[in-house]
């Protein structure tokens, strides 16, 4: 089943602002990243998926349903975690999540049971009976996540789920999202500005820029290895460059890293090691250079893709 499918989706606001323009894509289940510049149309896209905004033209299918025609059916199968604070401080997490489960259509008993289970899965235990106002940022993010998945959606929309978290909190949240996407079997669309996070947990990526599709591909395909080896020695980088040159390998320095062309076969690895041994240097790193997602945004000549279908 296709998770989200759009054809020539366009959204024009009354003021004349074009938020989405001719967007055609098909997203397969998995953990999908949605990236793009601020104001690139991500929040419009989410609103259309939730059936909160009608598209100006084009079609959109979410889990095979049309959100404009059947918003209730779509919303009962989609969970949404907003970016901003959205929790009433004077309620307990257990009570809020139970209440929202009922709003999603779960009968009273089921709502209570699932709220308690979901809060356990996101890592809130006895704190769930305390008022949310006293929670840390990390705990609040967990409650936001719990309310989004309490009704067992088939698709979770997470908007900047690691916002405001410190490094340890981010780690925990990313692990949790990864588990939800793999063990729990729920597909996830994550909006994030942090490309490092995306590389870590996502299977595929959709990049939108100025309302247009910039790139849609698997993360693996965007982070392929380059034909360059990174070598770091604690001292004597110049000695190493010279030693490599003697062996016919044209290496160059970039800061404290030595960049070596990988060559056709793996013999370069041995040449480097021989050079290091011969010069008696301490070898710190030997690794293939990989493409980074950030290159998507450093290359300014973004290819414009119109009308073509990209399967993610």
């Amino acid at each position: 089943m296709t998770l989200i499918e759009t054809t020539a989706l366009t959204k024009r606001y009354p003021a004349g602002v074009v938020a989405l323009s001719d967007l055609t894509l098909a997203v397969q289940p998995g953990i999908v990243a949605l990236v793009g510049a601020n104001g690139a149309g991500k929040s419009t896209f989410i609103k259309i998926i939730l059936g909160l905004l009608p598209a100006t033209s084009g079609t959109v299918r979410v889990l095979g349903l049309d959100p404009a025609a059947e918003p209730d059916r779509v919303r009962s199968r989609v969970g949404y975690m907003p970016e901003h604070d959205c929790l009433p401080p004077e309620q307990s997490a257990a009570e809020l999540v139970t209440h929202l489960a009922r709003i999603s259509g779960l009968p009273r008993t089921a709502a209570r049971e699932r709220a308690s289970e979901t809060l356990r899965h996101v890592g809130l235990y006895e704190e769930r009976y305390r008022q949310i106002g006293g929670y840390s940022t990390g705990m609040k993010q967990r409650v936001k996540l719990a309310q989004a998945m309490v009704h067992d959606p088939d698709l979770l929309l997470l908007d900047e789920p690691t916002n405001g978290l410190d490094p340890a909190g981010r780690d925990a949240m990313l692990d949790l999202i990864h588990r939800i996407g793999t063990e729990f079997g729920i597909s996830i669309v994550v909006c994030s500005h942090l490309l490092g996070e995306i590389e870590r947990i996502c299977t595929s990526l959709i990049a939108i820029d100025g309302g247009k599709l910039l790139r849609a591909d698997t993360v693996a395909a965007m982070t392929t290895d380059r034909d360059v080896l990174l070598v770091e020695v604690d001292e004597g980088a110049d000695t190493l460059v010279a030693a490599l040159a003697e062996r016919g390998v044209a290496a160059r320095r970039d800061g404290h890293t030595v960049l070596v062309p990988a060559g056709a076969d793996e013999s370069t690895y041995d040449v480097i090691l021989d050079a290091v041994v011969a010069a008696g240097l301490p070898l710190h790193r030997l690794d293939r250079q990989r493409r980074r997602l950030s290159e998507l945004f450093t290359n300014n000549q973004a290819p414009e893709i119109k009308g073509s279908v990209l399967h993610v």
Partner: protein
Amino acid sequence: MSEQTSVIHDIGYQRYSGPRLGRGYAVRSLYEHSLRTAFGVGRGMKSKIFPWGVVGVASLITVIIAAVSSTAGQRVISYVNLVDQMSVLIIIFLAVAAPELISRDLRAKVLPLYFARPVGRFDYVGAKFAALVASTWMAVGLPLVIVFAAVAFDADTVGDAWKEFTLLLGGLAYVLVLVLINAAVAMLVAACTGRRAFAAGGIVGVYLVTLPVSVVLSEIGTGAAQNLSGLPSPTMTGAGLRYWVTGDGPIDIGGFGWLYLLVSLVLVAGSIAVTHARYRRVDS
């Protein structure tokens, strides 16, 4: 001893395959939750002080009246007149409940959580309005029931008790009319601000500003001007409706009953429409 079997139970994530009830159920759940919120049920002690304080004060007054009535053998004040005396309690209860039900959601920005579920903006406004009306009606209607209980207990015949009951229904209906009109205004004010203190001040403020206008107009004006003097104040508009039906009350509206009804309807429908329109701008 029976053979012990060892099992590791699966307490991992379970998919949900039970029923998913529709939008009607969702709206009803929101209504019920809001009704509980209005009385501070399921919240801390602090949330209960104000609503129950109002209920307590209203009940105290009427218990005294009921006691006096039952010793005197006759009612000292009719239900509808009692309601007029308690109109300020309606305002106070609304000033407590409306910010709690409406402003608080705005302040905490919880609306996106609702709108991402099978409740629409209109459902939300409708459920909140219904809960606001119902809670205020209960809080202010309860004292009437206390008076009824006291008087009906003393009634000589079933017929007397029945007559008393119809009078009670009239009183409760009058409460409902006053609550509907004032709750519509209160909801609109509460939907304008996320700060509960401002909302409460605004609701009391509208009452405190509009009531004297009506009073000054009715004291100084004559003829039609006097008949129409109730319209600037929601509470006096409700009192005008009472006059239209019973021919009695704090204000003489002459033959303008239909106008009072029209203004009331416009007020209620208009407030709901404007509140609904306001939520269109709420970011989700």
